[in-house]
């Protein structure tokens, strides 16, 4: 394969095939026309010799919120980190299979993982602002990622990012203060603003509310529903009610003992969220969501 950058990937092709692994029932509930922004094909992720997840084939729809749920160790966070090559940063981690972003495999030779991560941004479990001012948290990230506009344009970028993250009104008079001076919920919205400032296409969220109180959680959830107009969002959550509240489609992952005696994650069911939480297709899903699991 010839050398391709992520920027080229963005402008090259758009994948308009319907999501993978859909039953006729799923298609009734999720628009056929919604193209996939990311889709994985037979993805396996290893940590050394240990296969953490096996054979994941999933399509994530554009401008929708997709949720990944399942018990601890089912590989849902591993899958999420593989979608923007964040796993590359873990020594010994290896992804097999394909992850297509707008139709191009982000694991193909010549793809720059840094650019992948800029286009497919990530928000982590624990808010992790830079030890810098609120302003710099946005501006510095944008500069590192190649922003070359004027000072005025930068001010505009900072304001727009903070507005998009529903934080502007709370911080506009203290942009010079440290990011650490904000509450946990505000810090998480600052991290979302920072991710938005690099103009991503997809935002991955790894349990973004698990360190937040219910009010801050509600604000992030409202924000996600706002953001999906412009971005495609994929969220890992332990909170099934949260998945039920915000997501359009939900994938349930579970753990099974492999032939080698290892606990490997796999995807059990991928359905429209309402269906998955009221009448799931698979007994395994039903057992998990009703607490009969294990």
């Amino acid at each position: 394969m010839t050398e391709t950058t992520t920027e080229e990937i963005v402008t090259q092709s758009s994948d308009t095939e319907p999501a993978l692994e859909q039953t006729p029932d799923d298609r009734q509930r999720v628009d056929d026309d919604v193209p996939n922004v990311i889709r994985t094909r037979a993805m396996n992720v290893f940590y050394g010799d240990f296969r953490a997840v096996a054979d994941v084939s999933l399509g994530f729809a554009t401008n929708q919120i997709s949720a990944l749920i399942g018990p601890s160790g089912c590989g849902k966070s591993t899958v999420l980190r593989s979608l923007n090559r964040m796993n590359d940063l873990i020594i010994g981690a290896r992804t097999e299979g394909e992850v297509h972003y707008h139709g191009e495999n982000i694991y193909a030779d010549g793809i720059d993982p840094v650019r992948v991560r800029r286009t497919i941004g990530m928000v982590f479990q624990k808010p992790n602002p830079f030890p810098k001012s609120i302003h710099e948290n946005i501006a510095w990230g944008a500069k590192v990622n190649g922003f070359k506009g004027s000072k005025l344009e930068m001010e505009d970028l900072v304001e727009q990012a903070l507005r998009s993250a529903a934080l502007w009104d709370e911080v506009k008079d203290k942009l010079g203060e440290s990011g650490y001076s904000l509450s946990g919920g505000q810090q998480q919205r600052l991290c979302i603003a920072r991710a938005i400032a690099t103009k991503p296409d997809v935002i991955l969220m790894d349990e973004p509310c698990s360190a937040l109180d219910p009010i801050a959680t509600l604000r992030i959830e409202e924000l996600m529903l706002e953001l999906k107009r412009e971005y495609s969002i994929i969220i890992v959550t332990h909170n099934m009610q949260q998945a039920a509240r915000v997501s359009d489609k939900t994938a349930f992952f579970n753990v099974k003992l492999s032939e080698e005696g290892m606990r490997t994650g796999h995807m059990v069911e991928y359905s429209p969220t309402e269906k998955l939480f009221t009448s799931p297709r698979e007994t395994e899903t039903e057992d998990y969501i009703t607490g009969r699991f294990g």
Partner: protein
Amino acid sequence: MTSAQDTNLHFHQELESLEHTVLGMVNRAEHMVEMAVDSVTTGNLELADRVITIDEDIDKTYFEVHQMWTTLMARFQPLGSDLRKMSVLLQLNATFERMGDQCVNIARVTQQNDGLPRVERICDQIQEMGDLVRPMIRTSIEAYLRQDLDEARLLPAMDQPVDRLNANMFKEIVAVASDPQMLEWATKIMMASRALERIGDQAVDFAEQTAYLITGKRAEFVETGLDKLGDDPDG
């Protein structure tokens, strides 16, 4: 056992208790139908009073179920078949409370018709309606307990003769309209007939709820006794 499993065991115990309470209401309603029909066809005021007393008890249970239901939802936020069962139990709570109310309507007819002359032929027809409605309630209960979709689907066909007898009641009343005293009695009896027809419909509703619980799909049974559940390609 983990604490999460403990919590879920606790939820399922409480859900079972809620279900038991709701089904207790329909068991009482089934008994009330028998007493109400007997009271109105024989003019037995004592039976009518008993129906009204039992209904007061059902009304109390209705509020208790609401309270239990709300508390369970707030504490556990159930999903999957548990959520469907919660949804069904809330609906059944209302349905069974109304069944009780319809029995009271029949008992009130007994009270209002006290001392008036009766037409035995019409009384027989009311009795026949009661004899058709009670097995409907029983079949709905059995279908629910056994989670038997085929049994639930019997209900619309069972309801048809009840509807026919109710429609025919008007003709019977017109036939006795020449006698003013008889007319007064018969007009009230029409209300009892209507109440039995409604109880039949409520038994059909109960069976529809059972079908939803089993299949996860909402569908109304149609009057022919067939429904679209089985034809659903996604079923």
